[in-house]
Structures are given as structure tokens and as C-alpha cells.
């Protein structure tokens, strides 16, 4: 009876599919789904069947209507594959606006390429993709594909709204497994519960969304993963290549990695001697860590060779030592080994790198990491080391790895810990400019800038990637002055608790000030001007998510030719808003203009209705930073 029922329902399903597949006229898309949309997912059915610990089948049916050029990138069918998975079947059809079939996919049109052809990457990952490259809008593409995974360490996740500008008519995700197969689920922004059923000794669990309108693209709106539904899956016991593991807890997941890393930390004799040499005479662990880290940075550089076990096992320390390169795993493993040799306990640490990433939930152990760093817990503090950088100061975690959960791989298994976060009072920019104006309006200035913590991230990258000539070229092009020449400049990195870069520049700006018959016009804010302008938006949809936080303080002293008095000076300004505070003031004492500016930017979430206050705040800063002073000759 059961089998007959099954056949019957399968038949129904097929018929249903066929009648869908016949056409997808654009006219049948509900109006609300077109607003803000570049593409509409008409139907997406994901079916993931876990047959065993080393076989998973993923069937996908995807129908999307592309409304305009901006939606074209959603018309691709893309499947990544490697030694651990394969693409078994792919069919595709193109429809016109009325839903009439134009043509079907030809096998020869499928592209098959390595994922990355850059030099820094050697790995097994390849990608197959297809596109009809149709450009008469709107049009609809339909793809049906099946692929097989031979590992269960990573299960597919469900992200029904892939990005802004895409609406969804109907999207579902079904997980099919043996009744006793154990997996865990974490849902985000998913309003209802999953539907569970059993069929032929299989357990089915289904999630579904319908009629989700497109999210508009707005300035500083929250990242898509905070507003769109998302369901994440993780196995309990899993297998990858010939390795089995358990991720029901962070501890168990850590054990798996610990096991993989075992025996990879053997150092050659030369490195052992080198470590002994480095730590000789050093008394404190902090000093030793810094010195050994420096040694590792000078000796190695990043080359992304990721082969075997899906790229999850580090290459041996010995290999990094002889070749002088490795990827994040190999380099971090090498660093842990060097510190071990010095008698300092350090941990290989899994992390998810990237800005604006979804935070890893402490209550949902899963393999969601994409990067490795080294953590050194000392008596008072933990020192964090980014081993793929040849330049980052010891202990600093920038925006790529800071302020998030990370998994320490210890001999007792995994331990979830938090990487450091830098606060407003840490992220400082301070500028002090001494300038002299001559009688024809030419300005000479000496600039001294200090960048601390996150304020120093960009500059750090630049000064280390560029030669002096390239640094000069950058300065030639990027100062906020209409016309100028750099005379000299220098950079100094200070070894404080937080990274600080000191920048000195001397330059001349010909004709900076206008000197007419009896007046002198000058903008006293010489270099640090607010540059963002926003358009008023009366229909703002999302809350405002401001990520940057810092304090800027500027002092400018300008010596002007004698004999002038102030004719028009803007009143001191103090703008206090939820988004931050801006203060500026200028005064003339004798022939000295003194200008001060202070800006505090707050991090946080602000209601959508306050958006126009933000627009005005930016606009007022923009204007104030360009306000001119007028001096007139004393009679």
C-alpha cells in the first residue's frame, strides 16, 4: 500500500512540476513583489537527502525572472565542486516574458573552471556554471540540478533571499534523512515552525517562505543576514575524506581538528636553535611572543595551497620552515609549534574572517569557519596573532577577525572564545597642523597625524604594501586640497598596547587662500573634511546601522600676514546627535588663526525615521568643514 501511495504522489508531483514548467508568465507575478526588485524567484525547491554519513544528494529546482540588467547576475546557475562532491545532472530552460519557452541548455554551454586562477591559490575547487546571456527583459530561467556530496561535515544551508533587490514568490527547503539520523537546526528571521513528516521510514522536515518582497538598497541598512530568513544545519557525527568526527559540541568539533593537526608541529633542528637564540635573555612571555612572531613574519609569506581533506588539515611545520610559505592553517600551525619550542602554550584557532559577517552563535556548534589564527593565552591577557600577515603588530585583530567568536583547538577539545573588540575610545585620529600663509595666498604646512587601532587599519596596509615612491604618489593624489605639492613625509609605527601610526607630511598648497585688495579668504579646515552627502529620503524602510566608531580631533594653526582683522568667522558649532557629535571653532589672535574640530562617531542601530536627521548631520558637517573665514585689512 505504501509503495503504491508513493508512486501516486510521485506522479502527482511530476504532473505538478510539468504544469509549472510549462510557463512562468511575468504577468502572474504579484505587484508587491516587483517593487524594489531586479529579479523575482518564482520557485525554488531545495531537497537535501542525507543517505549516509558519506553520501548526501542535493536536488534543486530554481525558477527566476530577471526584470532588468541589475538582476542579470541572478540568472547564473553555479555549482562548486571538488574531490568531495560532484554535479550529476543539470537542465535549464529559458522563457520569454510571456512564459514561452525560447530554448534549453546545451551541455556544451556549461563552463568548467578552477575557482581561482590567481597565483596565491592552489586548490581542488572548481566551478561549473551556465548562463543563457539573454538580454531582453524581463525573461525567466529555470534550472534543475542534482549533486552529490561525499562528506557530511558541511551541510547545505538555506538562504531563500540571496540578496537585496530579489523578491521571492515561493521557496522551500526539505531535509530528508533516516529517522535516527541526528542533525541540528538554527533558524534566523524565520517566523514559523518547520513541517515534519515521515515517508517510507524517512524523516522529512520542510521550511518554506512565500511572497517575500525585495529589500531595497539603502544607505547603512543592516546586513542582509539580519533581515532575511536563513536556516543553518549542522550534523552531529560526520565524515570528511577518511576522517570521522562529532560536532554536537564545540569541544567535540575541536577534538576533531586537534586530531587532524596531530604530528604536524615537528620543527627542524635549525628552527629549534633559532627559537633558543631568539628567547635567550628575554624574561617575559610577551617579549618572547613578539620576538618569535617577528621572526615568523620575516621568514614566511602567504601562499594559499589548500589540497586534500577539503583543505582542512594544515601542512607540516617543517614544510613551512623549508619553503617559507603556507596558507593560514600552515602558518598558524607553524607559529604554534615555534611558541611550543619556546615553552609557551599557544592554540591553533578557527575563526570566520570578514567584515559584516554573521556572528557565530555560541549555542550552535557547526563548521562555519574559513580562517585560522593563533591565540596565546598569557597570565593577564590573550595575545592574538594573524599569521598570514607579514606586518600586523603582535596582538592586533583588525576588522577582519576582531570582535567575534573563535574556536581554540586545545588538547581537551574546542573552546569558544571572543576576539578583542576596539571601542570608540580606542579608535582615535588626532591631527595637528602648523601652517604659514604668505602674502600671495600660498600655504606651507607641517602636518602631524596619529592613527590608533581601527583608524590605522587602512594606513597600515598602505604603508606596508607601498614603497616610498608609491606612498608619495598616493599622497600626491589623495589629499583633500585643490592643488598642492608634497615636500616631505614620514611614517612611524609605535609599539603601544594598541597599534599607532604617526604620519608627518610637509607640503605647500599654492594659491590656497584668496587674497584680494583688502581681504583674505581662507578655509581653516585644511585636510580633514567630511565627504559623505546623502539625499533626503522620506520613505526610508530599514533601520540605520552605523558600524564605524571613532573620535577625531584636529587642531590647525595658521599664521597669516600681519595687518588683518576678522571680518566674518562662522560661529562655533556644536552638533549633538544620536549618531555622533561634531564641534568646530575658529578664532583669530593677532595674526594667528586657530581652528579646532572634534568629531565623535557612534556605532549603533538607529530607527529608520531618524534618517533625515542623519542626512542633515552629514550635510551640516560637510558645509562646516568647508566654511571660509574672511579677514580684512585693518584700516
Amino acid at each position: 500500500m505504501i509503495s503504491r501511495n508513493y508512486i501516486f504522489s510521485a506522479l502527482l508531483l511530476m504532473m505538478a512540476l510539468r504544469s509549472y514548467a510549462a510557463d512562468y508568465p511575468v504577468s502572474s507575478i504579484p505587484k508587491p513583489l516587483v517593487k524594489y526588485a531586479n529579479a523575482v524567484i518564482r520557485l525554488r525547491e531545495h531537497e537535501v537527502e542525507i543517505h549516509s554519513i558519506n553520501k548526501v544528494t542535493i536536488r534543486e529546482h530554481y525558477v527566476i525572472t530577471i526584470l532588468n540588467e541589475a538582476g542579470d547576475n541572478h540568472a547564473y546557475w553555479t555549482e562548486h565542486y571538488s574531490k568531495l562532491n560532484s554535479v550529476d545532472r543539470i537542465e535549464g530552460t529559458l522563457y520569454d516574458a510571456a512564459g514561452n519557452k525560447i530554448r534549453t541548455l546545451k551541455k556544451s554551454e556549461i563552463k568548467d573552471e578552477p575557482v581561482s586562477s590567481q597565483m596565491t591559490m592552489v586548490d581542488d575547487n572548481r566551478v561549473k556554471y551556465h548562463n543563457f546571456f539573454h538580454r531582453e527583459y524581463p525573461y525567466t530561467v529555470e534550472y534543475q540540478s542534482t549533486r552529490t556530496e561525499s562528506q557530511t561535515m558541511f551541510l547545505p544551508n538555506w538562504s531563500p533571499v540571496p540578496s537585496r533587490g530579489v523578491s521571492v514568490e515561493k521557496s522551500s527547503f526539505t531535509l530528508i534523512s533516516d529517522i535516527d539520523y541526528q542533525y541540528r537546526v538554527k533558524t534566523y528571521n524565520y517566523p514559523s515552525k518547520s513541517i515534519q513528516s515521515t515517508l517510507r521510514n524517512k524523516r522529512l522536515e520542510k521550511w518554506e517562505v512565500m511572497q517575500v518582497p525585495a529589500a531595497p538598497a539603502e544607505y547603512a541598512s543592516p546586513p542582509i543576514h539580519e533581515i532575511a530568513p536563513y536556516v543553518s544545519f549542522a550534523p552531529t557525527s560526520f565524515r570528511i575524506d577518511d576522517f570521522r568526527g562529532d560536532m554536537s559540541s564545540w569541544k567535540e568539533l575541536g577534538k576533531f581538528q586537534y586530531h587532524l593537526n596531530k604530528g604536524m608541529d615537528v620543527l627542524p633542528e635549525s628552527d629549534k636553535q633559532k627559537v633558543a637564540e631568539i628567547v635567550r635573555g628575554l624574561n617575559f612571555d610577551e617579549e618572547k611572543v613578539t620576538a618569535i612572531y617577528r621572526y615568523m613574519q620575516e621568514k614566511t609569506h602567504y601562499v594559499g595551497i589548500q589540497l586534500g581533506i577539503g583543505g582542512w588539515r594544515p601542512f607540516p611545520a617543517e614544510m613551512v620552515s623549508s619553503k617559507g610559505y603556507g596558507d593560514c592553517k600552515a602558518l598558524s600551525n607553524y607559529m604554534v609549534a615555534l611558541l611550543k619550542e619556546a615553552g609557551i602554550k599557544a592554540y591553533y584557532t578557527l575563526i570566520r574572517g570578514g567584515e559584516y559577517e554573521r556572528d557565530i552563535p555560541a549555542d550552535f556548534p557547526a563548521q562555519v569557519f574559513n580562517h585560522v589564527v593563533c591565540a596565546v593565552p598569557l597570565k593577564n591577557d590573550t595575545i592574538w596573532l594573524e599569521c598570514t600577515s607579514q606586518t600586523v603588530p603582535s596582538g592586533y585583530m583588525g576588522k577582519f577577525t576582531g570582535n567575534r567568536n573563535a574556536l581554540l583547538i586545545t588538547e581537551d577539545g574546542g573552546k569558544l572564545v571572543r576576539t578583542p573588540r576596539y571601542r570608540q575610545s580606542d579608535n582615535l585620529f588626532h591631527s595637528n597642523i602648523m601652517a604659514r600663509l604668505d602674502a600671495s595666498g600660498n600655504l606651507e604646512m607641517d602636518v602631524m597625524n596619529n592613527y590608533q587601532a581601527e583608524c590605522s587599519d587602512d594606513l597600515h596596509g598602505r604603508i606596508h604594501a607601498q614603497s616610498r615612491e608609491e606612498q608619495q604618489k598616493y599622497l600626491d593624489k589623495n589629499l583633500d586640497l585643490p592643488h598642492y605639492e608634497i615636500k616631505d613625509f614620514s611614517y612611524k609605527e609605535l609599539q603601544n598596547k594598541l597599534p599607532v601610526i604617526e604620519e608627518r607630511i610637509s607640503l605647500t598648497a599654492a594659491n590656497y587662500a584668496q587674497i584680494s585688495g583688502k581681504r583674505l579668504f581662507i578655509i581653516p579646515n585644511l585636510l580633514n573634511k567630511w565627504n559623505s552627502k546623502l539625499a533626503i529620503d522620506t520613505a526610508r524602510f530599514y533601520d540605520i546601522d552605523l558600524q564605524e566608531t571613532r573620535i577625531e580631533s584636529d587642531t590647525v594653526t595658521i599664521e597669516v600676514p600681519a595687518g588683518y582683522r576678522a571680518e566674518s568667522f562662522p560661529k562655533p558649532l556644536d552638533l549633538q546627535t544620536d549618531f555622533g557629535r561634531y564641534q568646530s571653532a575658529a578664532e583669530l589672535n593677532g595674526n594667528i588663526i586657530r581652528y579646532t574640530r572634534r568629531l565623535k562617531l557612534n556605532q549603533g542601530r538607529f530607527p529608520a525615521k531618524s534618517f533625515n536627521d542623519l542626512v542633515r548631520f552629514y550635510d551640516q558637517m560637510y558645509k562646516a568643514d568647508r566654511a571660509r573665514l574672511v579677514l580684512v585689512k585693518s584700516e
Partner: protein
Amino acid sequence: MKINRLFLCTFLFFSLASIAQDKLPFKFGKLSPADFTQGVPAFDTGAHALVLGDVGVSRIVPNFNGGFGYEFERRIRVKILDKNGVDAGKFLIPVYFSKTNDSKEEVKSIKGTTYNLDAGKITETKLENNQVFTEKQSRNYHIKKFSMPALKEGSIFELSYRIESDFLFEFRPWVFQGDYPCLWSEYEIEVPEYYDYVYLSQGFLPYHISTKKEVPRAYKIRGGDAGTMGLKQNDFTLNGSAMQKRWVIKNIPSLKEESFTTSLENYRSKIEFQLSSIRYPNSNPIPILEDWPKVTENLMSHQNFGDQLKKAEGYVEELLVPVLAGITDPVEKARRIYAYVRDNYTCTSRGSMYTSTGLKNLIKTKSGNVADLNLLLIAMLKSQNIEAYPVILSTRSQGQTHQIYPLMDRFNYVICAALIAESEFLLDASSPDLGFDKLDIRCYNGHARVLMKDPVPIYLLADSLLERKVTMATVIVDKDSLKGGIQTNFGYYESQSRREYIREKSENAYFEQIKTSYGTDYSITRTHIDSLKKLDLPIKVYYDLAIGREGEDIIYLDPVLVPFSRENPFKSTSRMYPVEMPYRIDETYLLNFEIPEGYKVDELPKSVKVSLNESDGSFEYIINADASRIKLRTRVSLAKASFNPEDYDSLREFFGFVIKKQAEQIVLKKIANP
């Protein structure tokens, strides 16, 4: 006698010169600690790594298939100057395989050693074979990838490898100027008398050595069946000669990006080869590189080019029936056809002179590449007995085409030339914002070829384009506000970019952008655009603006509401290569300002006129005032679009002056007791 003596002298001179300086100043494989003292070269102080020597040799020799192939050998020595220079030790070697036969390339004996100086001693680290990875990009293209080991600041590495190739049509070019500066770059080739190559050498750097020499050679032809030479024996020897050529350039700086260049590739020092004919013994020469008429003939029957025009003869005419109803004038017909193609077909890519989908499919799907669209346009014009030809060219970012040799891989774009009565029209239907007889700026890249029976060159020059822009502002100040009416007549190309913006966003969004640029305290009203849809004409933009004010005693006024630029477009203080702007500029701003009641002019900027290098350009700023109004006229014009690097400083100063002058203020003062 005389001739002989001269010959002898020249000969002596050359041999002396060769003794003095014609050899690589070091030997590969031999290093001493002194070699590590080499620092950043004075001719390229921004370098992260320095190529001490890069020597390539390519010889055409018999392969094992009964014909010839070539062997390429390269040896390179590099010093890593700073930690960013380790990237110089990363290599990608592409390897090709034929799609249609068993011709192929093979990389052999990759050997590398890194040398480090540690405490006065040199240590060696070898590149191991298991660190050389092969990545399959596609069936006919693989990449060998590797990184030199143990590289750090101060390291020197040497690398050598050999490639055996069957592809004589792609005889290996040599790039003297790469990503890193180089002290000595040398290339030697040996070509048997049977092969004629055209040498295409480009760049600004002089050859230190450029020599040639003929040598006798006995070629043993092995294996294969009949072979490419049409000879029947399996193994035999050919006695002949070969030409050896050798080029050296010394002290080569790396090529660096600069603003306002069409394509940096035009300036890179390199030498390329194009097979022009094959002359095997006892057989007729086989021409390979053809002349323009022959190339045109081939193209006109190519299945992705001229053949498409022929096939289209039958079916394009009926499409035009509704388009041309009642039209008899041929120029008007051409206009209608042009507009029809432009407005009804979408161009999806612009990188090829060959059709992608073909005309039949284009008509069905309404989308194709630039060749599909413009060939359809040509087919349609021809169907109405209008003389029309394809014109092939290379767009600005692609580098220039060769005027003499028809090197087809340099062409990437096709437009249409229509000849009606005595007039010639150049048409491009691929951009929805272009008008009749207008081309995109990117097409103005010098030589282009009209594919007529006797193909003629035409020259599309940026210098021939004039972008004229006039802005008129009328400003009045009343008790509580400052108000103005602005009208800007844009030049054609600025109109095109605004049309594109408005088409993609909206007219509203365009004015919203203008409003944002003035600030939230300004209001923008009475907005209007003339000729937005008349694509043959430039647009005119109108709007009124107003900002509130208080009755100050002194009014400071920025008279130039729409300045030429707020920042100098030429920021860099030095320049290596010519400045290539897209067109000549002529920009005028006129202000008519009504002095408010109760105020008088207290200060006015001075009028000036300056010129750039006498006649290359001019700037004027003429201002005068009477009791009731101020009139200002300021104009920037350039007489040409391209400037030599020597003119860069004066160009930069010129723009600096324009920006400063246009930022000057007018001061009005309340009359004490009116």
C-alpha cells in the same frame, strides 16, 4: 674600394662595441656575497623587486611530427628588495593545446634556486618538483603554478625553464618591460630561412643592442607521415640557413598606471612576431599574413562576419516595411533604420568584431553583441540600396591597431559606414544613447579600416572632437533669499553620459543628485531637460535654485556656481607618458548678477586672460560691474586632446590656476545710509 673600407670600419666598430658591453654582466648559477648588495635602482625607486637579468632564446627547430616547432628557453635572476617583492617569485606559465589537432606545448625542466645571505654565508633552497602545480583551465589551456621557496627581503632567486611548442603562428613574443624594473632584458631568436616573420616592436625605450646574423644550419626532419612540407620521406636533412636576431634593453623601469591614458599597453616595451609567409625549398611560397584586400575578402565571407550579411539578404527587408512606410529620401531612410536597430535590439557585450549569436538569432532574441547589431544595421541599409560597409577598429582601452599589417586580433569593434550621395556617415547602433552619425568616445583610437572592395583607412582622432559646454546663471538676492536660474548646454559626450544616467535611474534621480551636491538647505525647482530624447543633439538642463539668507551687512558670493572643476585633475607631480584626453574642451560660464537694493560692490576679483603654451589652450575670466549688476564670463578651452609628457607641468599649472581663479569671491556691502 670606398665601399669596402666603409664596411670594414662598421664591422670593426661593432666588434669593439660587442667586446665592451654586449654581454649579460653576470653568469647564471654563480653568486658571491657581493651580489647581495644591489639596492633599489635609481631609475625606478618605487621597486619592490629587481630583475637583474632576464634572458630568453627562441629557436625554430624540427619537431617530432615531420615539421618545425620552436624551443623557448628562459633564464631569470631576481633580487627581492622588500617584503612586498616576494610576489615576484610567483609564476604562472600558460600551456596551450590545440583544439583541432595534436599540436601542443610542453614545459620542460623548470629549475629554480633561492639564495639567501645569512651571516656572510650563502644558503641555497631548491624549487622542488612537487611544488609545481598544474591547473587545468580548460581542455586546451593549462597553467603551471609555483612560488619560489624561502623568499624574503634580500633574497635572490634564479629560475630557468624551457617550453617546446608546435605553434609557429604564435611565435613567442618578448616583453622587455614588466611589473618589476629590470637591469638587463635580452631576447634572441633563430628563424630558418623558410619562415618570414614581421617584427612588431613597440615602446619608448631604446635598444642597447639590436643585431642580426645569418648562420648555416642542417635541419634533420624526423617522424610524422607526410609532414607539413608535403615531402614523402620520413627522415631527411635540409641544408639551409637561419637568421639570428638579438635585442637587449638595459635599465628598464616598470610600467606604471597614469590617469588620462587610453591604454598603458601602447607604451610597454615589447617585441611580437607575425608569421607572414612560409617558403619551403622546392615549393611555392605560402602567404600567411595577407594584405588588406585579401583580409577583407576573407572577412566578408567569414561565417561570423560577412557571411551573416549575405544570409540576411532574404529576411531583413520585411522587418523594415513598417519602419520605412512612406519614406523615400535615402538619408531619412538611413536615419529610420538606424533608430530602429538602436531602439529595438540590446547590445550585451562590446569586446568583439565577430558576431556572437548571428543576425537571425539576434532578430529572434533581440539581443546580441556589437557586431550582431551593427552588421544587422548594415544588412538593413543594403536591403534599401544604401551603400554601407563595416568599419573595424580597436577601442581606446584595447590599444591601437596596425595601419600596415592587418593584425586581426587587435580589432575588437565594428561600426557602420554609410555612403549616401556625397556624404559619409559613421553609425553605431549598439548604444541606446547615441545619435545618428555619432560614435562613442571609446572608438576614437586612431586607425580604423573601412571594409570596402579596396579597404581604406580612416583615422578617428580625439583631437577632432570638441566638447563645448556653456552654463548661464542669473542670480538675484532679495530680502530673505538668494535665487538663481541655471541653464547648462552640455557638449555631446557629457549629454550622452547624462542620458545614460537618466535612462538607468530617472530624471528625478538626476536632479536629486544636483540638489544633493548643493546641500539640503538649497531648494531646486522648475527642473527641465531639453532634447533628452533627441539623441542627435546635445541636451540643455534648466533649474532654479534658492537658499535662505539673513540680511547681513556683507554678502560674500561665490560667483561661479558651476566651476570647471573643484580639484586639479592632474594631481601627480610627474608624468612618464603622454596625456590623452577624450576630446578638446571648451567650457564657458556666464553670470548675470543683480545687485540687491541697498548694497554696493566692495570687492571684485580681477579680470585675467592666460594661455597654455601660447596656443594649446586659454583661460579667461572677465568680470565687470556697475551700480545694478555684475557680469562675469569665464572660459576654459584646450586646442588639443593629447599632450606630451614635457607639457605636463604647464598643463597642471594651468588647471591649478583655473581652479583657484574660479573659486574667488565677490564681496557686497550694505550702503551705510542710503
